[in-house]
Structures are given as structure tokens and as C-alpha cells.
């Protein structure tokens, strides 16, 4: 006989599954409503449609290692014969499930991720060899303990809260070295230098392609909407690397063709914006969609679900593990601009440079309510941008659709103000 809790859980699983599918379809519909979407975006629309169609199954037959936060060196996981999958979720349906475990005021990314793992534990338990949680922000750290209690094989990847000192750097290198050794235990596969070289090259190719997209977004003619870019990078969380690369190559080819023929995706005069702050992760593409529906175009971003995830590449000097593993560690710490690090002035500098390189006219700062690091860093960023003469719109939001009306009013006003500024200058 099924107990009441079991029944309740089964009910929750069912309704959440339905909500998730609805949420997905709704977001996909809003994404595809835009005119002239690139044909090659269809791959990504289909990917998410299929992923959440009925239930949420892991899209690979291989052993999966879940990662939370982008500081986990995926290269090591691939080299150890498993598939890394970024678990950070953007689903409101999961956010509501997670609310059972975490305080109401906590960050929706953490809530949704915890909720997702709770709900799908029976489904995924077998193939999830480990969930790796780097010690980034407090909420992720504490959620790791909750996941452990649920029975997940949680691996805590110790990370320093600063990156400037050599001590921090060496501590992190040791941490990653230990991770590499432990991974071999977890998967039972040895990490070899030649395997690691291959994986690094493969992931470098992903970075190269992402940078290519980034470069195309620099073009005077707007070629692709930011909402589509976020879909592409959200796909990177879960997709098979090789198919992702093929799809991105097709997209790049199409955009280059459009550029050559001077075909624009939107009004040539559309205000050029940059999105930073808490990560937009599918299906929560609320803010990017609103911004672009209101007539703006997101030409650059500085978020951990897109630019920060894919921009950097491992650079090693010697082809042996003694050099490659610390090189991997460096790649995940040194250029990182996550607000859990202090000081984080590199984030300001990066934004300043991007504002210049992508000719950005305004910055949209998205902060999830409950995501304190981003909420607190807002001031620092806004000061820098004010100095550079770039207006910034600060939006506090979450995964629900309750604030849609309020958000769109503010976004429209911001975009109008940028247009007004132009007329004045």
C-alpha cells in the first residue's frame, strides 16, 4: 500500500511535470513569436521541447555527473569517462517544489535546482554518479547539504572566496587536483593526458564558436537576438557537446550569410543593450524576452549562464597532467567574475570593455530576489557605468510571471529613455 507521503509525492511529480511542460511551451512560443528567427535556431527550440515534453529525463545514456555552478572543470569529468551536466535550473515549476526545502526568500536558482533534484531523484538516481557543488555562494553551499540529506552523492569542491593571492590560487589548484583523483574513483576510469588533451581541445572549440557568435553580435547590423543566444547557451548545460557544436556552426554560418546580405533581425536603430546579473536560464528567459519585445536588442551579456560560462579556454604549457590539471584550475578561477569572489573588480573592467567593444548604450541588471551577491554588487557596477556614461536599469525579479506587467513598463521606459538620449546627443 502506498503511504500518504508517497501519494502526495507522486501527485507533485505529475503536476510539476505538467507545469514544466506548459512553462516550456509558453517560453518557446514567446521565443518563436519574433519575426525572422534564424532557421538554425530550430535545433535549440526542438531540444528544449523534447527535453521537457513528458517528464524530464536525462538526455544521455552515459554516467552523468551533475554540476552546480560553472567553476566545476567539465574537462576532467569528460576525461574520466562521464558526462557533466549543469544542474542549475530556470524552471518556475521546480522553484515551487524547492520552496519546501529552502526559505521563501532564498534565490530561485538554488530553489529550482534543489526542487528539480528532489523531484527526479527516483528517475535519475541510478545514472547520477555524483553532484558536484563548488563552495561558491552560501545558498549553494547550504543546498549541497540538503541534497546530501536527500541521499545524493554530493561532492563538495572547495573553492576560495578570493582569487588574487597565490595562496588562493594554489589552494584551488590542490582542490581541483584532489577532484581529479576522486573522479577516477567515482567513475572507475583513469584520466590520461591524451584524453584530457582531446577534451580540452573539444571544449576550446566550443569557446571559439561562442566567441564567434559574440563577434557577430558586435556587428552594426543586429543579426541575432539575445534571447536566442541565451537559449543556445542554456542548451550547452545539457546538450551533447558535438551536436551542440554542429548546431552552433550552422547558426554562425547562417548569421554570416545574413551579415553579408545586410539582413537585419530587428530595427537597425534598436537600442543596444547588455544584460548582466543573475543568470537567465531556460525556461526563465523572461527579462531578455521582455527587453527585446520592447524594441531593444541584447548585444552582449555578462552572466554565468552564457558569457562567463563559455568565454574562457584552458591554456596549458606542457602536455602532462602535472601542468594540465593546474592549468584547468586556473581557467575556472582566474578569469571568473562571479560575485561570490572578493574583490570582484574584474567584473567592472570586463563590463567597461564590453560596453566599448559591443557599442552598448544601456545595461540591464537582473537580480533574482534572494540572490544577495548580485543584489549587493549592483551599486559597484552602477557606479562604474555611471562614470562611463552608460545608463543602467536595475530589475529585481524571480521565476514567477507575477511581475511581468511591472517589468515591461519599466523596461519600455528605459528603452524610451535611451532613444531620448540619442535624440539629445
Amino acid at each position, binding site marked *: 500500500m502506498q503511504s500518504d507521503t508517497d501519494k502526495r509525492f507522486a501527485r507533485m511529480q505529475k503536476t510539476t511535470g505538467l507545469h514544466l511542460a506548459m512553462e516550456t511551451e509558453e517560453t518557446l512560443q514567446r521565443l518563436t513569436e519574433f519575426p525572422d528567427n534564424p532557421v538554425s535556431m530550430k535545433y535549440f527550440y526542438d531540444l528544449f521541447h523534447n527535453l521537457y515534453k513528458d517528464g524530464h529525463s536525462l538526455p544521455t545514456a552515459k554516467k552523468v555527473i551533475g554540476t552546480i555552478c560553472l567553476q566545476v572543470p567539465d574537462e576532467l569529468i569528460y576525461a574520466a569517462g562521464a558526462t557533466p551536466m549543469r544542474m542549475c535550473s530556470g524552471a518556475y515549476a521546480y522553484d515551487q517544489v524547492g520552496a519546501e526545502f529552502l526559505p521563501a526568500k532564498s534565490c530561485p536558482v538554488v530553489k529550482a535546482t534543489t526542487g528539480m533534484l528532489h523531484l527526479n531523484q527516483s528517475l535519475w538516481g541510478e545514472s547520477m554518479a555524483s553532484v558536484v557543488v563548488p563552495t561558491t555562494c552560501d545558498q549553494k553551499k547550504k543546498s549541497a547539504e540538503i541534497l546530501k540529506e536527500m541521499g545524493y552523492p554530493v561532492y563538495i569542491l572547495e573553492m576560495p572566496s578570493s582569487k588574487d593571492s*597565490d595562496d588562493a590560487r594554489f589552494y584551488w589548484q590542490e582542490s581541483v587536483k584532489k577532484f581529479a583523483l576522486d573522479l577516477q574513483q567515482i567513475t572507475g576510469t583513469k584520466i590520461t593526458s591524451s584524453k584530457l588533451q582531446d577534451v580540452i*581541445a573539444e571544449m*576550446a572549440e566550443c569557446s571559439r564558436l561562442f566567441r564567434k557568435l559574440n563577434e557577430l553580435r558586435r556587428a552594426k547590423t543586429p543579426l541575432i537576438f539575445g534571447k536566442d543566444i541565451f537559449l543556445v547557451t542554456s542548451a550547452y548545460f545539457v546538450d551533447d557537446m558535438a551536436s551542440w557544436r554542429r548546431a552552433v556552426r550552422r547558426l554562425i554560418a547562417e548569421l554570416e550569410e545574413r551579415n553579408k546580405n545586410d539582413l537585419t533581425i530587428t530595427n537597425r536603430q534598436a537600442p543596444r543593450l547588455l544584460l548582466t546579473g543573475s543568470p537567465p536560464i531556460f525556461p526563465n528567459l523572461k527579462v531578455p524576452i521582455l527587453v527585446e519585445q520592447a524594441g531593444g536588442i541584447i548585444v552582449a551579456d555578462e552572466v554565468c549562464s552564457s558569457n562567463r560560462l563559455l568565454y*574562457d*579556454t584552458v*591554456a596549458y604549457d606542457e602536455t602532462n597532467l602535472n601542468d594540465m590539471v593546474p592549468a584547468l584550475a586556473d581557467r575556472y578561477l*582566474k578569469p571568473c567574475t562571479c560575485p561570490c569572489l572578493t574583490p570582484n573588480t574584474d567584473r567592472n*573592467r570586463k563590463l567597461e570593455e564590453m560596453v566599448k567593444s559591443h557599442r552598448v548604450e544601456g545595461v540591464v541588471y537582473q537580480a533574482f530576489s534572494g540572490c544577495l551577491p548580485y543584489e549587493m554588487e549592483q551599486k559597484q557596477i552602477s557606479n562604474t557605468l555611471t562614470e562611463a556614461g552608460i545608463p543602467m536599469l536595475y530589475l529585481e525579479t524571480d521565476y514567477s510571471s507575477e511581475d511581468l506587467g511591472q517589468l515591461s513598463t519599466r523596461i519600455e521606459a528605459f528603452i524610451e529613455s535611451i532613444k531620448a538620449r540619442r535624440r539629445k546627443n
Partner: protein
Amino acid sequence: MSKALKSFRRAINNANLSRFRFYFQAASFVLLVYGGYLAINIGDQLPTFGCIFTEHRGGSCYLFGLQHQMATPWKSYLSGRGIGILVGLLTFFAFFIVFNKAWCGFACPLGTIQDWLTALRNRFKVRYGNYSEPVFQRLGKIKYILLALLILIPMGMGNSFFGLPKLNHDFGVPFCMICPGRTVLPLFSGDFSQLAIDLSSKTKMIFTALGLLITGIFLAGSFIKKRFFCLFCPMSAFHYIFAKAALLRLSKDGAKCTRCGNCYRACDVGIRAIADDLEHKNIVKDDCMMCFKCVEMCPEEGCLKVKFLGLPIYESTEEGFFKRMQGHNNAK
């Protein structure tokens, strides 16, 4: 800029400079160690370690001449010998000013030997050693002490300091006595005579014994630590006095730097400022050997540039970086 020039520069920036450097170093090594066989000698005022103790050398290090000349009594500095000193210095300067510290990264035979030892270590998959930043800073001062000594000791031979007796002639060319170049480079032309302890006097015995000890440390040290000796090299310290005036430069655009640290990773000497210094444009530090591996490893467009007379000749590009990093691996 014309199309042809653009594509030419693109090809240069995509090039694997390290490979070029490897062959260039080998050629310089042959020239400096065996040049005599081909009747080539480019002089004895070189800003690099060709060694005077190598019989068929193609050129040799200025420090030998400098030490020799410093053993001059004060009053003779203003005579004809003073002109000799000046001419020596100017010749050195003329060589140096063109290539700056690239003499270390591209020409120095002792540096090349260290790079070969590094390649050997890599082949054996032995882990390399590194200094922590404070240790690096402290050890880095040694080269200035050596430089001061190699000037002051010979001066003490020709003159009396503070009424102390003059040093005897066994103190001649003190740095050469302890330099691994003197012991190691002649070996390449089959001359083992420098691997001996000179028992003719106490001073000579101490110097030559110290020289052998340092040779041992040099070989072991540079097997473990990349460019181990360069951190202590008084020639490198001497270079730095003139480096700001040199025509070949390494420059950095701090605004483009993401502080990803790739350059610091690649740096054989271990100069942290290359990654963390966002202010200075001229980024050649005293320990830099201008191998330009940092430029190769930099993924930001035009962040690091090698310039000659202000004109960029090799610079960091996204395309070049990915080409070099992916090497033969072609991800589909």
C-alpha cells in the same frame, strides 16, 4: 591597411612563435658555441652568454670584459683605458638596444640549455617546480647583488677600498669563476678542462670549487625549474638598466586584459605582473627574457604586443590563440 599586408600580419599572428624560437635558439647556439669553426666571431661585448672560455666560440659575453676592465686604478679611468671601457659599454649597448632582452629568450646558449633540460623533463613527465610569489621576489634580488659584486671585486683589485689592501689577481673575473657558462659551454666542443678545481691558490680553489657546485645546482635546478638560472643572472640585471631605452618592446593594454592568467601560466620565469599589472604599457620586467610565450597564450585581441620601434610585429589574437592551443587536435 592594404589587403595583402593585413593577411600577412594575420599569418604572422597565427604563427607558432615557440617553434620558431626553438630553431632560432638552436641556430644561435651553433653560432655562439661553434662559430669559430666557420670563422665567424661577432665580438666579445655581447649582451648574452657566449663564453670566452669556449675555444671556437662565435662571440662572447660582455661581463668578462667588464670585470676585466673594472680592475683599473681610479686615475686610469680618465685615461685611454677609460675610453676602452666606454667603447666596450657602447658596443654592448649597440647590440642590446636592438633586441632588448630577447637576447635571453632567443640567443643565450645557457638559456637554451635550460630550455632543452625542460623539454627533457617534460618527456620524462616529471613535475616542474615553482616559487611562491614572495620567494620569487626575494630570490630575484640575488642577481643585483651578483652584479654589484662582479663590478666591486675587480675594482678592489685595482684600488684600495677604505684603506684595505688591494685584492690579489686570483680575484680576477670572479663571476666567470662561478658562472655555469664557463664550465658547461666548453663541454660542447669537447673541452673538459674547466671541470677542475684550481689548487694553485686558496682563492682560486674556493672560486673553482664554488663554480663546480653551482654548475651542479644549475643542471639539477634547471631540470626541475624552468629557466632556473635566469632569476639569478647578473646579465639580466645589467640588461634591465638599459631595457627602457630598447627598440624591441613588449607592451600590454590593461583595459583589454581579463586577468585570466594564461600569460602568467606560460611564463617560464614566473613573472606575475604580466597578468596582474593593468597600468604599465611597457611590461618588460627585470626577469623577462622576451620569449613571448605570453603573447602566444593571450586570447584577447591586441592585449599583448611585441613592438619594434613602436610598430607591432607580433600580437595576441583570438584566432591565433585558438590555432595554437588546439594544435593538431581538430575537434569536430
